[in-house]
């Protein structure tokens, strides 16, 4: 199998820099998710690796070999496109068989290869159909089968679940990790869906405007987002962000929320007196009885049950709106006045001006994209 490395890659279109001096290493057999808004450069990065576009600067290594100047057909990667990119004039079978044809496999080997991957993806019954006669889900599976069939050491998946319906996306989110793990391939997976990113990635690279803003395990990205932007992208319901100015007392650093002092756990000494933003995950908040220490009085505005959890919108006495999430079936205030408590350990503090998280326990070296 093969590892993948991008070294100081730059890609420009006219005057616009799409990828800005980007370096990234994906270990052999690892699944790396590229996550970010559209226009972040995720797809461009994938195409650079595939070899269909060339970088302006930098090098690309696959399995330790410099592939920068090699044409796409010699790189031995498999790729599934967001828009499927099936060959409309070929049957699903011929579509899937194209990588085997290129390897000049025998007819019987080709048939066996296509049928086994088709069985795995449950499209064995539509192999004789043209793409036009396939449903979106079948098209997506055909495209995936085409990428998998040659057992390429590197798999590039460009948001393959983007154009399929919610049910199938949910199923595939469960199936894909096992499928990819079985293959043992090095995978780069592009998505805009944070749940997909969390479910599939061994590591996640959060991209924005052509640079990797943060690289880490799903856990790290969720617990220790590098900045407000990333904190906001990961998590549903979105993180609560409130302007605060930390102060110090005998018990440590605290922030004032609705005149209640909430003490923070962590190295936040340098933040005293600075304009900051506190990030509170909705699930880090809970309803408590009146009189609990550091309980914040609120009014319940609305409640939204979401099957496995219940999201409540509450308003503080200062009029700030906060989302509180709790597992379904647990008690909570449904209307009127209530009190909430903040889990000081999981609170995140960001610099107001730069948006960067303060007191990062894991300092992320953005340049090289490696956790120091």
């Amino acid at each position, binding site marked *: 199998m093969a590892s993948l490395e991008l070294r100081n890659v730059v890609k420009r279109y006219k005057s616009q820099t799409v990828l800005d001096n980007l370096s990234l290493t994906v270990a052999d057999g690892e699944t790396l998710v590229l996550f970010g808004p559209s226009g972040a450069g995720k797809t461009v990065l994938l*195409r650079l690796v*595939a*070899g*269909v576009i060339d970088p302006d600067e930098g090098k690309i290594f696959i399995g330790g070999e410099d592939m920068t100047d090699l*044409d*796409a*057909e010699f*790189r*031995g*990667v*498999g*790729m599934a*496109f967001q*828009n499927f*990119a*099936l*060959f*409309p*004039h070929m049957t699903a079978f011929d579509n899937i068989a*194209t*990588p085997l*044809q*290129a*390897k000049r496999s025998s007819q019987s080997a080709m048939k066996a290869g296509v049928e086994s991957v088709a069985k795995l993806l449950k499209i064995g019954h539509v192999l004789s159909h043209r*793409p*036009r006669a396939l449903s979106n889900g079948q098209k997506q599976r055909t495209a995936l089968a*085409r990428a998998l069939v*040659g057992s390429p050491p590197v798999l590039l998946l460009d948001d393959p679940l983007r154009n399929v319906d919610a049910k199938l996306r949910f199923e595939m989110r469960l199936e894909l990790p096992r499928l990819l793990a079985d293959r043992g391939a090095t995978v780069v997976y592009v998505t805009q869906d944070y749940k997909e990113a969390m479910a599939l990635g061994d590591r996640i690279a959060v991209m924005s405007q052509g640079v990797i803003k943060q690289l880490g395990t799903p856990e790290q990205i969720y617990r220790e987002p590098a900045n407000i932007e990333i904190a906001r992208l990961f998590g549903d319901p979105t993180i609560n962000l409130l302007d605060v100015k930390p102060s110090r007392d005998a018990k440590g650093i605290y922030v004032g929320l609705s005149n209640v002092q909430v003490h923070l756990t962590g190295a936040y000494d340098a933040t005293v007196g600075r304009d900051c933003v506190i990030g509170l995950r909705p699930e880090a908040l809970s309803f408590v009885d009146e009189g609990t220490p550091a309980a914040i009085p609120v009014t319940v505005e609305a409640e939204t049950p979401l099957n496995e959890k219940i999201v409540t919108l509450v308003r503080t006495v200062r009029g700030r709106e906060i989302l509180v999430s709790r597992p379904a079936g647990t008690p909570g205030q449904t209307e009127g006045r209530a009190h909430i408590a903040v889990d000081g350990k999981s609170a995140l503090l960001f610099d107001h001006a730069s948006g960067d998280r303060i007191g990062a326990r894991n300092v992320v070296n953005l340049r090289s994209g490696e956790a120091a």
Partner: protein
Amino acid sequence: MEHTSLLERILRGIALTLVVIFFMFPIVWILMMSFQTNETILRIPPQLVFKPTLANYTALITGKLTTAAGTLDIAFMRNLWNSVFLSVTSVAVALLLGVPAAYAFARHKFRGSEDIAFTLLSFRFAPALLVLLPLTLYFQKLGLANTYIGLIWVYQLICLPLILWIVRGYFEDIPADIEYAYRIAGHSWFATFRKIALPLAGPGIAAAGLLAFIFAWNNFVFALVLASADKQPVTVGALAFITSSGIQYGQISAAIVLSITPTLALALYAQRYLVEGLSLGAVKG
């Protein structure tokens, strides 16, 4: 379309009939003339009922034109063969050169590619008469005057830009990702061109080839100036029917019928490709 009243259908029928009569009348009239002698054609008033004769066709096929002034040799069948040969070869050459060029212009934006493509198109802006004089002089110097090669070369002015620009549009309509997918699967660019680009642009190539064929077939002025009798196509050859003893309407009509038959047959056969080609973009790959 579902709820059309009887009146609407009748009116539509009448309207369609009028349009068809308007456009088909000359062709039908020519077809009728081709089965008449000059005397019956020139009767006043013209009559719809006549005794059909195959004399015109016989004259054309045997190459003996009998007029009041005597018997003339005409090379109509030779002209017809010239037309077929010139048009088919010109279109074949234009496809061979134009389709790869169109692909290059569609897929590879190199420096000056737009300028070159536009220059090729501009050949069709220039009036043929403007280029004919210098061309004639050059051709005489080069020994290309009155040769098939020379004519096919000049016909590229008609066919090549047409094919290049139509087919280029079809290539551009193929999503680049489809070709990338084939490359990534491990195929060379040439295999991708042959197995993906060509089949997907097929209807467009057929449509462009057909149009180019019709334009080449209908060309008159290039062949008039650059070819003499034995290389002339039917368009020029028809002039031979204007004889010293009058215009041979019957033979001209028969000649027209014979000379439009190949293009008409080709157009009817290729019609489905034309329609398919034009609606290709509507279906997302």
